[in-house]
């Protein structure tokens, strides 16, 4: 436990609560994400997975502490920021891939423009640069670039997810948040999107938090897994450990339910 292993976490949640009383959705969630790793969050519908992700994306207010180990943000509780700063932090450091592409994309604009948006938002004022970088991001997301000018409206579900993915990685966020990124896609398409995610993890060393109810998806990507039950973390550990030697009764059931 010498220094090289004691790297600071990239992202840390401490005792985060969301909602009130009987409607409390997150009941004191703590977690850490380290540079270059993929953290999988599993749990059934209603366990608070998506809420957790929205809190992480600074989209929902919550109590507790949320810090990012990024220059200029050290020791700053992001949950206590004013909306203006919160948006700034989100735009500069975070990206979210949603389950439903239409909630994240401008369906009428071209795919390329959608991918360029985060770059423009961060102040890219050269059209050529924005277009080149957006095209590169589409390529990284294995999107057929000859279709870059088509709007997501006319694209298939799988391609829409790729546009979302390209948009998410275009500005190289510190943390990529994925909310059921393959749910609702055909099996084959699902598999291909997963391949892309895995390739991105390897190539770009992206740090990700992946929320999914599909253990197969989580298994394929995650280094560590967190099990969420009724807004609480009931188990956390190495991905293979949680899946092969689950400790909590709920996790054992979840793993058993896999086949």
């Amino acid at each position, binding site marked *: 436990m010498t220094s090289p292993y004691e790297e600071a976490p990239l992202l840390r949640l401490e005792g985060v609560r969301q909602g009130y009383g009987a409607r409390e959705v997150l009941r004191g969630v703590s977690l850490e994400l380290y540079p270059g790793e993929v953290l999988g969050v599993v749990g059934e519908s209603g366990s608070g997975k998506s809420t957790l992700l929205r809190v992480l994306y600074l989209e929902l207010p919550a109590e507790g502490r949320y810090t990012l180990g990024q220059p200029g943000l050290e020791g700053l509780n992001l949950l206590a920021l004013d909306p203006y700063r919160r948006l700034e932090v989100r735009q500069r450091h975070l990206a979210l891939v949603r389950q439903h592409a239409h909630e994240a994309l401008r369906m009428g604009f071209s795919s390329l423009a959608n991918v360029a948006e985060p770059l*423009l938002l961060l102040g890219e*004022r050269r059209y050529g640069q924005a277009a080149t970088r957006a095209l590169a991001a589409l390529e990284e997301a294995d999107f057929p670039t000859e279709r870059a000018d088509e709007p997501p409206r006319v694209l298939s579900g799988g391609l829409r997810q790729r546009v979302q993915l390209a948009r998410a990685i275009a500005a190289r966020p510190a943390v990529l948040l994925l909310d059921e990124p393959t749910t609702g896609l055909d099996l084959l398409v699902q598999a291909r999107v997963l391949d892309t995610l895995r390739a991105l993890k390897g190539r770009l060393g992206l740090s990700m938090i992946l929320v999914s109810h599909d253990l197969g998806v989580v298994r394929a990507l995650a280094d560590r897994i967190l099990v969420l039950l009724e807004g609480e973390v009931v188990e956390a550990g190495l991905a293979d450990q949680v899946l092969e030697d689950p400790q909590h009764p709920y996790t054992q059931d979840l793993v058993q339910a896999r086949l």
Partner: protein
Amino acid sequence: MPRLGYSYAFLDPGAKRELRRSLLKAVALPGYQVAYASREMPIARGWGTGALQVTLSLVGPEDVVKVIDQGADDSVNAANLRRFIASMSGARTTWDTLEATLIQSRHRIPEERLRPHQILILQVPIPEPLRHVEPSEPRARELHALADYSALWVGLFEETRRFRRSLKGAAYPVMVHGRYVMDPSPIPRWDVPKLHQAPHLTLLAAGREKRLYAVPPHTEVRPLAFQDVPFQVERVRARCRRTGVGHLFLNAIPGEGGLEHELSDTSVLEKLRAGRALGETYYDLEGRFYRDDVPV
């Protein structure tokens, strides 16, 4: 003499006070849309009621008022407004841009350069530059508050990608004082550079939408544009059929041999026809803008 039986300049004192207060706020927050209580006026909404209220709240007996409609002093609408303002305030009226102290205008900024003592009041149909990208008014206000103009940039990106330039002809969005994006009212792109670091005060008002905003003197006004695809004004290879001028903004008019062109600014047109000297114009004879830090 102002007309009897009405408050001076038509508006009651309370209305004027409220308007002036809103104008002060607008001047203090360049480009920010201030809500105000738009009054009923004896002309229809959408015909310049907003600018008319602003003009009436500012006008005094010593003022010289000019009203133009797309550059023309002689249109029915401009003439009506001018007479109304004059009869309600006793102010003198003029066609000459240089002589005027208050200029109410629909969709044009005069070609002769305005000076510090002049106030330009523009009629605005749609004050919200985000209207076509964000139909929800509360949400649009939120985007302004957060200075989140990504939707406009995405739109510009898209047009640049497809047509290699912006398609926006009139009402080209501008960033005012590096903070708020503003609709400069449907002035042609030709007029947009005239707002940047202008020595005069510009007030913009939309009566129907109950919003007014301002560009104070010497304020930075930059059209939204990419560095590598610069903003450009309209260029027409034509000459005015009555004066032969080709370096100022021309209206296209259907004539016998197809489209003919005529100077849009009647003040300039009349001066040239009468052989009188023009004041300094924003564009020189080569079509160069008078400030070289302004891309056109």
